[in-house]
């Protein structure tokens, strides 16, 4: 008898509870899903039928893998039409509730119609949108212009645009609440357009600019009082290129460039984190990198990546606040390490991240005459990525193990696949004298991860 009544009770508990939640909470759940999914809930039951129309965000992601020539299933044209129809219908049937986020992540085979883009963006603007994300915009002919009304959208906090877009910023621009701006691989009608956009966003915190093609810009003048993060990825080779940066509030700087000349940074002493990826090959490379480093006296975390070899015997400023340093360099090209160790007395974490294990191999470690101060009292973590068991690499490891008095972790990541050699050397390393009693020697199999720098 007891089991029977139990199963009765269980049956009662099986009754749908989620649908008992008020519309606002169901919408909150759905707001974490793509629109493709939220609209599908309309077929769950009659109670669920209208819920999707009140979700305060729209996230259209057309990421399904397609082939150049679709087989027996829907052809690319059919799929594109289905997508367009879907978006139009959703916008037509949606309740007139505010829209916090509008995202379009388009399929590589989808070519957007300019009138559709205008209508859809205008819809978002008309519903007090706070975030607009447009990714992989492709057109059949000219790059698309964004609707002028976008540039006076008072509610806009984030704007990320990527693809075949051209920014023609009107003089009436006013984006008082824009905090994050991403201009990824797009073009500008002229230099004035870019600068108008920047000046028309007085409270901007994050600026991300990726240049992969000629975009009608030669000189960038980035003068902004509130900017906190600037990520500039420049893949365009142009000897006329200039970038002048004047940003007293800047804390995070990411500069990825093939042209290391042409940069003029002033008033950036508040930078605490800098990532400089410099793949330039020309002669003045050394001078440029030093010029950049000299304007970062207060930096706390520095990542430097370069291809050419930086020789010794040049003057490095002191980096008294540098706590974390990562060098991403080709094999045997880390001669600068010695200078950095001597300039950064308070260094706590050091990562030597080799990009490859290619030769020709030449020594780049010279034992310093005096033990660097950071080793004596500060260095806690040292990571060596793609260690290839070269003599000078072993010397470095030995030196640090011996002299780093407060070292907690040394992580060695193997860059070669000769297991025998690795085993023998690991064995040998365990015997190296250690200056720090608490030091753990770890052999990593996975590269320490790289966190997306602008998710802060």
């Amino acid at each position, binding site marked *: 008898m007891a089991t029977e009544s139990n199963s009765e009770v269980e049956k009662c508990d099986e009754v749908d509870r*989620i649908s008992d939640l008020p519309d606002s909470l169901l919408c909150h*759940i759905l707001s*974490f899903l793509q629109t493709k999914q939220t609209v599908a809930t309309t077929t769950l*039951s009659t109670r669920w039928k209208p819920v999707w129309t009140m979700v305060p965000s729209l996230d259209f992601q057309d990421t399904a893998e397609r082939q150049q020539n679709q087989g027996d299933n829907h052809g690319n044209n059919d799929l594109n039409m289905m997508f367009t129809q879907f978006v139009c219908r959703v916008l037509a049937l949606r309740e007139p509730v505010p829209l916090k986020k509008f995202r379009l992540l388009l399929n590589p085979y989808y070519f957007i119609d300019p009138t559709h883009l205008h209508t859809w963006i205008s819809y978002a603007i008309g519903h007090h949108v706070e975030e607009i994300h447009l990714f992989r915009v492709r057109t059949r002919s000219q790059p698309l212009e964004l609707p002028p009304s976008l540039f006076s959208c008072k509610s806009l906090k984030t704007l990320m645009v990527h693809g075949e877009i051209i920014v023609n910023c009107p003089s009436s621009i006013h984006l008082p609440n824009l905090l994050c701006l991403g201009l990824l691989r797009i073009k500008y009608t002229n230099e004035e357009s870019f600068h108008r956009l920047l000046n028309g966003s007085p409270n901007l915190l994050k600026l991300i600019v990726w240049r992969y093609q000629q975009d009608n810009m030669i000189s960038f003048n980035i003068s902004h009082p509130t900017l906190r993060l600037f990520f500039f990825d420049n893949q365009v080779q142009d000897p006329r290129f200039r970038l002048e940066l004047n940003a007293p509030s800047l804390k995070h700087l990411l500069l990825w460039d093939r042209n290391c000349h042409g940069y003029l940074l002033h008033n950036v002493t508040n930078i605490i984190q800098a990532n400089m990826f410099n793949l330039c090959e020309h002669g003045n490379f050394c001078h440029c990198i030093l010029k950049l480093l000299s304007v970062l006296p207060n930096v706390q975390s520095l990542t430097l990546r370069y291809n050419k070899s930086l020789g010794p015997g040049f003057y490095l400023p002191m980096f008294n606040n540098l706590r974390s340093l990562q060098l991403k360099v080709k094999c045997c090209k880390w001669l600068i390490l010695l200078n950095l160790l001597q300039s950064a007395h308070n260094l706590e974490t050091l990562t030597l991240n080799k990009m490859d294990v290619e030769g020709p191999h030449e020594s780049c470690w010279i034992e310093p005459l005096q033990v660097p101060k950071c080793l004596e009292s500060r260095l806690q973590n040292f990571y060596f990525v793609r260690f290839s068991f070269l003599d000078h690499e072993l010397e470095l490891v030995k030196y640090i193990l011996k002299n780093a008095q407060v070292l907690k972790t040394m992580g060695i990541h193997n860059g070669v696949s000769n297991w025998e050699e690795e085993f023998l050397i690991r064995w040998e390393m365990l015997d190296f004298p250690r200056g720090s009693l608490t030091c753990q020697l770890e052999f990593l199999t996975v590269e320490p991860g790289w966190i997306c720098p602008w998710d802060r």
Partner: protein
Amino acid sequence: MKFCTVKQYFDDENNNNVTNGIATTVIPLPNKHLKIKANNKEMEQYEQELLRNVMPQELTKLILAANYLNFKEALDFFCRTVANAIQNKSVDYVRKFFGLESDFEPGEEEKLCKEFAWSFEGVDED
């Protein structure tokens, strides 16, 4: 945590959702959250655990509790957990997960599927 609301929550006799079980899960949350907020992996594990131990019905009560207590992080966390559980799943799966039954007129469901065709393109069947 807003302690006055918590006290009110327990004192409120009209609130039928008060059970000891819910209270013991929600109340220790702030500390757990602060601890694991920084670590994404741990969050994922906690989420998996939550799904395994807590039936969808219990999750509903947690959502209501978090909403009543005005505890935004917990509310977002629980809602996101439900969302992740039904992400990319077919309508039948979601119905089973929520313990729902379709109460549409015959033919109405097909009409909706046709109207929003792209929504049902390429969804995995569980």
